[in-house]
């Protein structure tokens, strides 16, 4: 029944497009279920050019590099190099928490821009960039390095920012790293993640001096692909420390340059957002022989499974501690589930997010008895969809690079009880009277990683679904109307 509806709505949506676009989009949509062989998770096309002229929810390579991966590194100054807009739009929206004195030794929530004028476009911006780097160092002497994040025009006007960075690095003896992450490169923010990873590889991995004097232990780990949104990496870190590990490096939420440079000394790389940091994990495996492991800290079931997997790597002593930690927290999360599950059981959810979340959060919803009936990635690749299959429990609509029109139609047809996606979609669905949670920024809540965070997650889902505000939509004098009719 559900599957039939899902198949139907894909047909309906495709009818709205001109033929060429319909053909393209048809390859990105599908249905999958645990029983299906070669379902949508195996067959959907992904990481392809978006159809022009629609409201795509995707960002660009600059967003992936500056906004997602580099931006949270707190003691470096990230220059939005080019015109004024990109840096302004990406300022302060992602909630990458950090501790530090902003403007003095930490800079995450600020916006540094080279504010290009027409002159810079015509004559090139390299000279301006050189001056700018000096000005940064003079006014912010405690910065631990500078990155230059290219906006669209840079790659089009023939500037050589790599050379400027190299020269400046020599002059200042601090890291100066240029990322050619112009927004037109690639098809989404995904390429920006990759480009940022490449600069980590080229610039940080080799910086032996930054890790000089580091004393290793057998229990050193690095957290990778956690951007500390609402404090996610902190609630992750605590659990790892409690089971007896030492987190020597966080990438990149609340990260500092030096701790990043320590990473090649860790014993295991723990990878949360596979999409945005698998490149570097693979590199460190090849180059330094450091194994990496994906884990999932959304919801107690997945958190427990992940902790056991991580502990197993380190042997009996850590395993014993992990079991203690699991027991301690499970008591609490059981209480959380007892409190909220009765209010949430059977509720249907549709997800549309980036990176790892379209699959990783499924378990957390299921811990609360909720069901996922649709999920998709803004900028996933084939390996993301393949990994998603394991998390499906029923017929699920799969949509890659869905645009606003499609999402609206899917929701109208499948009528979930909750939509969990981004801010651009939020008010569309709330206007239809549907509970909605932003799943990029945690809707100004969080953290959502780990056991303590699950309590917040459960509370948030309850408040979204069971708020009285949704019952006021219809005026008492209006007749019963169907959703979206």
């Amino acid at each position: 029944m559900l599957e039939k509806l899902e198949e139907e709505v894909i047909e309906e949506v495709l009818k709205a497009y001109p033929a060429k676009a319909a053909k393209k989009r048809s390859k990105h949509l599908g249905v999958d279920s645990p029983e299906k062989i070669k379902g949508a998770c195996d067959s959907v096309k992904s990481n392809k050019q978006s159809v022009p002229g629609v409201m795509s929810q995707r960002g660009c390579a600059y967003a992936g590099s500056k906004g997602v991966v580099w931006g949270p590194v707190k003691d470096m100054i990230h220059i939005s190099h080019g015109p004024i807009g990109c840096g302004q739009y990406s300022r302060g929206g992602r909630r990458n928490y950090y501790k530090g004195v902003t403007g003095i030794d930490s800079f995450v929530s600020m916006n540094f821009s080279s504010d290009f004028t027409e002159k810079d476009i015509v004559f090139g911006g390299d000279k301006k960039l050189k001056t700018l780097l000096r000005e940064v160092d003079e006014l912010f002497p405690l910065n631990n390095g500078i990155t230059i994040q290219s906006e669209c025009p840079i790659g089009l006007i023939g500037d050589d920012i790599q050379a400027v960075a190299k020269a400046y690095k020599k002059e200042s003896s601090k890291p100066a790293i240029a990322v050619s992450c112009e927004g037109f490169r690639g098809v989404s923010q995904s390429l920006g993640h990759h480009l940022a990873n490449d600069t980590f590889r080229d610039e940080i991995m080799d910086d032996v001096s930054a890790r000089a004097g580091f004393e290793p232990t057998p229990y050193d780990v690095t957290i990778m692909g956690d951007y500390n949104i609402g404090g996610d990496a902190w609630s992750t870190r605590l659990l790892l420390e409690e089971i007896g590990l030492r987190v020597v490096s966080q990438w990149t939420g609340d990260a500092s340059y030096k701790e990043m440079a320590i990473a090649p000394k860790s014993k295991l790389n723990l990878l949360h957002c596979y999409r945005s940091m698998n490149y570097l994990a693979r590199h460190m495996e090849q180059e330094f022989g450091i194994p990496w492991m994906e884990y999932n800290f959304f919801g107690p079931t997945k958190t427990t499974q992940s902790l056991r997997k991580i502990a197993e790597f380190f042997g009996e002593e850590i395993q014993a501690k992990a079991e203690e930690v699991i027991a301690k927290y499970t008591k609490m999360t059981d209480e959380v589930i007892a409190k909220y599950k009765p209010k949430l059981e059977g509720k249907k959810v549709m997800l549309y997010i980036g990176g790892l979340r379209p699959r990783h959060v499924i378990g957390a919803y299921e811990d609360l008895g909720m069901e996922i009936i649709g999920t998709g990635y803004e900028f996933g690749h084939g390996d993301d969809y393949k990994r998603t299959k394991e998390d499906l429990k029923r017929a699920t609509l799969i949509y890659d690079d869905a645009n606003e029109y499609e999402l609206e139609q899917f929701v109208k047809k499948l009528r979930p009880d909750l939509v969990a996606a981004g801010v651009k979609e939020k008010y569309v669905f709330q206007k239809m009277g549907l509970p909605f949670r932003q799943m990029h920024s945690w809707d100004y809540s969080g953290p959502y990683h780990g056991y303590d965070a699950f309590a917040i997650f459960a509370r948030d889902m309850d408040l979204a679904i069971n708020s009285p505000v949704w019952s006021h939509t219809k005026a008492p004098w209006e007749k019963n109307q169907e959703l979206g009719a």
Partner: protein
Amino acid sequence: MQVVENIVDGQKLFLQKEYQDSFEKKKEFESSYNSVNPQKVKEITEWTKTWDYREKNFKREALTVNPAKTCQPLGAIMAALGFEKTMPYVHGSHGCVSYFRTYFTRHFKEPTPCVSDSMSESAAVFGGLSNMKDGLRNCNALYKPKMIAVSTTCMAEVIGDDLNAFVSGAKESAEGELDDVLIPYAHTPSFVGSHITGYDNMMKAILEQNNPTRSEKVEDAERINVIPGFEPYLGSLKEIKEINALFSDKIVMIGDHEEQWNTGAGEYQLYSGGTPLEILKTAINASNTISLQKYSTVQTAKLIKNKWKQGYTTCNPIGLNGTDAYVMKLSELTGKEVPNELTIQRGQLVDAMQDSYPYIHGKKFALFGDPDFLLGLVSFIIEMGGIPAHIVCHNAPKKGWEADMKEVVAKSSWSEECQIWANKDLWHLRSLLFTEPVDFLIGNVYGKELYRDTGIPLIRIGFPIFDRHHLHRYSISGYKGALNLLTWITNAVLDKLDEETKETAKTDFFFDSVR
């Protein structure tokens, strides 16, 4: 650990001992170069508050820190959304468009429709014509607009795409699908001007390309067009329309985005409100056009004055004097007496100003924002007896603005204490606030960090405001709008007074119940 009876947010969770201990442990791995050395951090913190730092800071030539402006296409989108069933279409990268939509949506807490044609590397090499051809058709098929308003991102501008040729090319190859939709276009290069420039360029394009030439103009002597400009206060649009209606129903707003960002619960409407296209297409026939933001309509003004040969004036109905001037202008142009209703509203505003003035008189304010917004707000502060000590306009236009502002400031009896800072950013302002402090700061959400660093309370008036709800629903224009301004400012002064006097047995003798 969480306790199920009292689940706490991150705010309190991270204050728990186990997390605090974990933060301590993390520090061990963090330090490098000079940072995280508490002594050094303190030293530099203090240094940034000095005149020495200020001088270095003001010598910056290349670096912008914490800007108070943004790029052209954002303004173009607002202009486009002021018209009936119009889809803003941005020719260029889709990353920018995600940013534009997010930015507006965070401010208004409303959806913001806008498409892009997702240009990428191949378009960088071959140009974006094929994106435009497919994009316009897809947009038209999915969103069924009556008008598609095309603007550009940096990328399209740098590679030099010819919009005129592209739009007509796309129309020709669309097998008739685009015949019934209007497609005005404007170049909106982000490396020129700011978001208000984009508003201007798009407004001009929409007007010019949807109106006949002057030879076909049929003048309607009674008709007056009013262009609001880049106006983030939806309540202002509403109030201006109310004032207009009190004079004549032939005063029409051109570019009315009020309803687009203010639809009710119940169903999602992609388009809402906007200036009807019939009104747009006859804009040339008006006898006069009034722009409410001189500096958001510089190019538009040229079209109206020079090509359309209409009467053209600018007004700035923020504060008492500005509203008076607007009302008198309408009276002059319509030949009607000022309606009694407005005289009553004015009286009520002045009465309220006379109630509250002691709290604003002689207080120092620092203000930042868009050029026209500042002209209005500074005027109002002066009307109340306040001192606009620092006026920071990051996107100050090269021509005219400073002179206009000087004229406004000259009306203050403290005019020598008022400093006008054109093209300075908020890191400059930080130095100003430390070296020459004020009592209150007025500006958008980006003033928040200045409040944290300096302790000077921020009164949120401007755009964008992401961290307070519903302010954009109010008016800051007209007499009622001025009353809102007065309320926010006065009560901020009183809140501060309470804050400063609340300590038991120490300062609370002044913690009065009546103010």
